[in-house]
């Protein structure tokens, strides 16, 4: 086992939460329980004579995702037709991107090493197929609601070498996608889908393995890791026999906790790509790309440091809040409520409450605040104790004090944060500021 290593490239599809379709003005409703075929039009139903017109927001968002991931944005890009026949593909081709994608390169950092991106491109989603028995005959039921939804495809280089790295990569990518604000990226609801391409080689080998196995039907990060582990063992067993695993597509089976063979690929499919004649090419100036970059929301790491220093939180608290945008929003709202400020409840106290307690989703922020306040025994911290903490912090950070005295005003915030941490969040903050300023001026 230890002589082998995994070589994994990941293909991720993310459904954008635009208001309308990629090439049509149909409602992009991503809720699950809705009637079939209620959001169609000539374009996404593939009727004779219909024509596609691209959604500017979908294009902008794809570029913003590329910027957030460090990709190069194409100066000129276009759409291409990708041909194959399947009942959920109304035109008999998918409008996608072939040789001039919107974004090239980029990367996602993991604690196991960088995972480089090959490309990011934009395309339209297909309809959905449901298999069933009708009048004793096996049929497929087709629903085109999803047809035409904007879909971003992210392809990595084969830089992933373990199931842990895969999981970390996916979680980080997921977080970034959510922070850019372009998709809910919910794996259970299907707005984020992933397909690992897995192969195994001897450790230390540098050439790419001569085969790869694609795994579909994975709907959680946990299952992604499990599928990868299963494949690793399966491939190693075959390689040990001196054979090469069959190049094929397999499906993850939750119940069996295993992958199952679906289809053997006889060579590459011939998609007969050619440039989409119905859509003129796209050209982006440097100025335009910079306006998109400026519009990028702050990313996870920046948000985390901001919230930690502003409220005296520790690394764990910062990380937990930032990983869950709902919790983060609740925290930010509650911490600034007048009732909380009057009661002098500390940031860390509120953070712990939100992180650890099972909060009733129907409670309002005010109600939650009241609960927190009620649970606190108000401790008044004396000026002497406040001053003790201030002196300790100043003695532990001589450089910061010197910087402040040299005129660097912002350093005061840093010292303040440390004092609050020292006080474990207790104490009248305004009083702390006043005493700190007094001491610094002395």
């Amino acid at each position, binding site marked *: 086992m230890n002589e082998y290593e995994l070589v994994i490239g990941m293909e991720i599809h993310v459904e954008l939460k*635009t*208001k*309308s379709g990629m090439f*049509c*003005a*149909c*409602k*992009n409703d991503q809720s699950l329980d809705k*009637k*079939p*075929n*209620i*959001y*169609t*039009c*000539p374009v996404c*139903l593939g009727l004779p004579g219909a024509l596609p*017109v*691209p*959604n*500017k*927001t*979908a*294009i902008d968002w794809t570029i913003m995702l590329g910027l957030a991931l460090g990709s190069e944005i194409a100066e000129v890009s*276009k759409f291409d037709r990708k041909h*194959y*026949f*399947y*009942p959920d*593909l109304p035109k*008999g081709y998918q409008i996608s991107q072939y040789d001039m994608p919107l974004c090239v390169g980029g990367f996602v950092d993991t604690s196991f090493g960088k995972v480089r991106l090959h490309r990011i491109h934009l395309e339209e989603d297909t309809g959905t*197929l*449901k*298999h069933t028995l*009708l009048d004793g*005959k*096996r*049929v*497929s*039921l*087709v*629903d*085109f609601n999803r047809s035409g939804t904007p879909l971003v495809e992210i392809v990595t280089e084969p830089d992933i070498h373990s199931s842990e790295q895969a999981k970390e990569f996916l979680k980080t990518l997921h977080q970034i996608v959510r922070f850019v604000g372009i998709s809910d990226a919910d794996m259970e609801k299907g707005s984020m889908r992933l397909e690992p391409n897995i192969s195994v080689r001897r450790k230390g080998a540098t050439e790419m393995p001569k085969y790869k196995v694609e795994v579909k039907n994975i709907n959680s990060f946990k299952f992604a890791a499990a599928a990868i582990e299963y494949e690793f063992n399966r491939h190693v067993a075959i390689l040990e026999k001196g054979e090469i695993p069959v190049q094929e597509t397999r499906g993850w089976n939750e119940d069996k906790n295993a992958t199952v063979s*679906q*289809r053997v690929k006889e060579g590459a*499919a*011939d*998609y*007969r790509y050619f*440039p989409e*004649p119905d*859509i*003129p*090419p*796209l*050209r982006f100036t440097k100025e335009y790309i910079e306006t998109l970059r400026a519009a990028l929301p702050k990313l996870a790491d920046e948000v985390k440091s901001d919230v930690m220093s502003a409220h005296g939180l520790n690394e764990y608290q910062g990380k937990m809040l930032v990983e869950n945008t709902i919790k983060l929003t609740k925290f930010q709202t509650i911490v600034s409520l007048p009732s909380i400020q009057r009661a002098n409840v500390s940031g860390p106290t509120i953070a712990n409450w939100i992180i650890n307690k099972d909060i009733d989703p129907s409670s309002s922020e005010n109600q939650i605040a009241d609960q927190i306040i009620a649970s606190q025994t108000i401790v008044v911290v004396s000026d002497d104790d406040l001053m003790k903490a201030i002196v300790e912090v100043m003695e532990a950070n001589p450089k910061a004090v010197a910087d402040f005295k040299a005129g660097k005003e912002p350093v005061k915030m840093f010292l303040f944060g440390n004092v609050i941490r020292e006080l474990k969040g207790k104490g009248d903050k305004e009083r702390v500021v006043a005493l700190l300023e007094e001491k610094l001026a002395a």
Partner: protein
Amino acid sequence: MKGSLLSIDDIKKIAKLANIPISEKQSEELIKQVGVTVAYVSKLQELPTDGVIETSQVTGLENVMREDVVDESRMFSQVEALKNATHTHNGFFVVDAVLEASE
């Protein structure tokens, strides 16, 4: 490409890619017809195009896009969407069971 005629295997492969069901007899007719066409258009190889960039769009247009707005007037009701289909069931289109995409 040389102007050689295509084989019956070539024709069958193309017909499968094109998703056109053809009989054995049709295959034979098409060998000649498609083969003759391909041979004729291969004449284009005589036109020098070194260093020439392809034209995919004669309009010269770029960046033609639409704002992210829903237009309900263009959307179909479920009834309208299904009205031309031969086989429907509970709001779905129905096809014989398919397993994999025939690429």
